[in-house]
């Protein structure tokens, strides 16, 4: 983010605080130094954005299961589409928490941020669910005619 390599603490709006590094502190993510507040805030915003994505996936799943008219001839069709959407929502929610924690730890140690796995997981799973939906719809139309 900063290419001049200067300390992120020069903003002056954030108190630098060093706590002794103990195994306990490492588990809590409280060792290292408190990073620039802006980095912490950006990490929090990213987490919230992923959480809203997770919520949207759950809502999409609920919408398919509750609001969509049933597929003719395919009574399990809606569940087959809705279940992976909801499971993906749960997975995105939990994984975004772990990524937030890993990023927070990296920031405290001045270590490089780990590349997020979430975009790939989201893209691949949504694509698979889209193909699945197309297959269910096609099967319903073919079996009816």
């Amino acid at each position, binding site marked *: 983010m900063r290419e001049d390599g200067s300390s992120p603490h020069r903003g002056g709006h954030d108190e630098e605080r060093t706590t002794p590094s103990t195994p306990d502190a490492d588990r809590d993510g409280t060792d290292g130094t408190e990073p620039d507040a802006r980095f912490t805030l950006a990490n929090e915003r990213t*987490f919230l954005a992923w*959480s809203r994505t*997770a919520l949207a996936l759950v809502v999409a799943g609920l919408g398919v299961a509750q609001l969509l008219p049933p597929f003719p001839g395919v009574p399990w069709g809606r569940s087959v589409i809705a279940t992976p959407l909801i499971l993906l929502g*749960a997975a995105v929610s939990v994984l975004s928490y772990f990524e937030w924690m890993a990023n927070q730890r990296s920031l405290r140690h001045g270590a490089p941020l780990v590349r997020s796995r979430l975009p790939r997981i989201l893209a691949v799973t949504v694509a698979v669910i889209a193909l699945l939906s197309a297959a269910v719809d096609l099967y319903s139309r073919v079996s009816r005619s």
Partner: protein
Amino acid sequence: MTGEGESSKASPVGDIEELDPGLARQRTDLAWTRSAISFAALGIVVLKIRPVVGAPVLIFSAVIWSVGRFVRTPERADRADLRVLLVTVAVTVLALTALVLTLLGHNSPGLRL
């Protein structure tokens, strides 16, 4: 910002984030508000269909809104970070509830539009 000579040339006053770090906090406050609104919108819709599930979701949107007002300082970082866990647990519990509703209820007629 020696690495970003171009942008400081374009803007003689310098990086606006350096001038006003409060903008980052404001963006984060807005993100919390957006998250609370997302929960509220879902809660209101579910309230009409299934009040038993909708009411807790609506209550939880108020909880998210109020913890979003919490100002994170280094001294209170631990408590501030608990909010993140709270949101994760809420979305996950909601997902599991949705999963149970989906697997149990096969007979919803759906909306006729």
